[in-house]
């Protein structure tokens, strides 16, 4: 495992600047997730590290060595694609062993056998090693595809939405498994997704990317609790952060703040007590929690509440803001002096 560094990397396709002046250090053993919508430049970044694309500017180094001009095979990286592509005529064992049998590697068969069995164990597909790859369920196939990357010991694993083709339950299981395997192996991972739950639950650090620009890099907790900018604030959290024009809550916002960002943690629902008053519009049951929609001066705020708390449509409630986030007219975070 190794450190990987991107320095001021840029890449354009015709008129489109896919990646702009992007710098990112990934330390050995880190699980870094690039989070962004379709077209943000996250897959291009991954392909640049893999060597599948050449940058127009900037450098990429792996383990301190500049690999910017090197072909993929010389970079010692393993790539997991969104769509699993297994060899249908081979068994699960042979699919997993395939990367190790490359002529350039010359691994003894006993070593191959050992590694394949270890990885199969980790991925809980040991019982299926003799099956044809085509006789597996979708989840098993994707585990084999991930396993085929994991049998190698590359400098870094590059993963492009590897769980997105799976159903919700399996995705939740594999999220947890993948994180555990990464910790067990001490693997360095650069992982790309548009799913904020995947980013929050798996990452050591998240890089929020938009229009080819890295907006903020930090631990999931840092990004959630202390976003630098309004766009970043809207990327994590469910329900999504509420954004209220600052002039609707007189006296709440510091000078220069145009928008108040209010997460569930920042909003207390009380009995009407002379402070700001909102009206419950709708109570949505999610089971473990309710989403309460509250009208406040033409805005709708959505916040979490205990499912057995009696709140009903039409009811008036007091609203108290508890250390919300503030943003200026450009969307930059306005921090209070104490922060």
């Amino acid at each position: 495992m190794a450190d990987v560094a991107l320095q001021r990397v840029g890449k354009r396709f015709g008129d489109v600047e896919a990646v702009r002046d992007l710098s990112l250090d990934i330390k050995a053993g880190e699980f870094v997730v690039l989070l962004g919508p379709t077209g943000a430049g996250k897959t291009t970044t991954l392909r640049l590290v893999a060597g599948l694309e050449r940058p127009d500017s900037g450098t990429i180094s792996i383990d301190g060595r500049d690999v910017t001009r090197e072909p993929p095979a010389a970079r010692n990286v393993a790539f997991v694609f969104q769509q699993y592509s297994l060899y249908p005529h081979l068994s699960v064992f042979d699919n997993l062993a395939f990367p190790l049998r490359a002529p350039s590697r010359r691994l003894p068969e006993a070593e191959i056998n050992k590694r394949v069995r270890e990885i199969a164990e980790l991925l809980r597909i040991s019982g299926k090693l003799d099956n044809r790859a085509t006789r597996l369920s979708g989840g098993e196939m994707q585990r084999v595809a991930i396993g085929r990357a994991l049998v190698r010991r590359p400098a870094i694993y590059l993963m492009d939405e590897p769980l997105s083709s799976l159903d919700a339950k399996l995705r939740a299981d594999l999220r947890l498994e993948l994180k555990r395997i990464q910790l067990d192996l001490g693997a360095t991972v650069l992982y790309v997704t548009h799913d904020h739950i995947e980013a929050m639950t798996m990452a050591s650090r998240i890089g929020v990317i938009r229009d080819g620009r890295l907006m903020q890099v930090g631990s999931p907790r840092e990004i959630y609790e202390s976003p630098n900018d309004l766009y970043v604030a809207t990327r994590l959290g469910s329900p999504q952060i509420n954004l209220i024009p600052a002039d609707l809550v007189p006296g709440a916002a510091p000078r220069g703040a145009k928008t108040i960002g209010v997460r569930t943690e920042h909003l207390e629902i009380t009995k009407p007590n002379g402070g700001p008053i909102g009206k419950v519009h709708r109570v949505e049951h999610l089971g473990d929690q309710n989403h309460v929609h509250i009208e406040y001066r033409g805005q709708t705020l959505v916040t979490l509440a205990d499912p057995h708390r009696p709140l009903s449509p039409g009811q008036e409630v007091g609203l108290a803001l508890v250390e919300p986030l503030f943003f200026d007219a450009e969307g930059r975070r306005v921090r209070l002096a104490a922060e």
Partner: protein
Amino acid sequence: MAEIRVENLRKAFHDFVAVQDSTFTVDDGTFFVMLGPSGCGKTTTLRMIAGLELPTSGRILLDGEDVTFRRAAERDIAFVFQLFALYPHMNVAENIGFPLKCEAMARSEIRSQVAEAAKLLRIEHLLKRKVSNLSGGDRQRVALGRAIVRRPKAFLMDEPLGALDAELRRDMSEELRDLHDRIRATTVYVTHDQLEAMSMADRIAVMNHGVVEQIGAPQDIYDLPATMFVADFVGSPPMNFIRLQGRLQPNDISVRLDGANVAVPASREASSSEELVLGVRPEHVSFSDASRIRGRVFGAEYLGTTQIVTVDTERGQIKARLPSFTQVRPGETVGLAFKSDALVVFDGATGRAMRSVLHEGARHG
């Protein structure tokens, strides 16, 4: 406005029984959701209510009137498929007014009906626009407008939001529910998405293998699932199941687990076998050093407000939803405590929830 009643409804396709003996009532003005995995019979049931499929046996009553063998067109019900199908060469007003034009309604009448539907959907400003230039959300609104303009007695919707991406889906489901709150037309809505069902429904019918396993208000289904299937299908992550040997008698207030007594809501019936399953929602699991139920932390998933902590125990993995400020380290040994007044005990032989004192306080049966 209408009440829909389904009596002993059954549908077989050759050897395959798609729907077995369903009976339920959808009250006038209710948003009723049929929830289940693919192949559970929910769409077949909906199609029988619509008249697109004839039942093998049983009856369907619309406002007390037997419509079982009436053609779809004679039922005064609007079936909303995936909402996207619009006529690309017509503008928004023509699209919405099309069903009325087919009924040869007078032009001035059509115009006022279309205006009213557009107002309900808040798309008055779009009436003259070509549908091909509309955003995904607006196209959905127009398609809905075409369904409500006829003022049918009831709406039937089969995964109408299935083709949309997650964010738009969430917005549209909220809008659909808002629209329902404004017009209060009886709606039967089919989905496999438990979160959509929970957040939209007044009542949910959970189906599996052609059988309605439970009907109830969303919170009651979540808190008091009637079967292990329902407990597992509703909730994310789903309810934890802890298998244990033992019996439960009426008025018992605890079960034995790993040499410890775990308090449960007072039972109101006796179990039928030697195996019980304790059902615990993740938010009802907490860490407790004093507990004799021990496990090792497998991993923690940060979600912002809360985190899901997975603990390996001798009885399998148990997931806990804890506040995100709780410090958790993978590998550490923890004791687990359960919120006793929220537990459900299932009969291991039948998979059915055993009646407890909690059922006596339930708002709906």
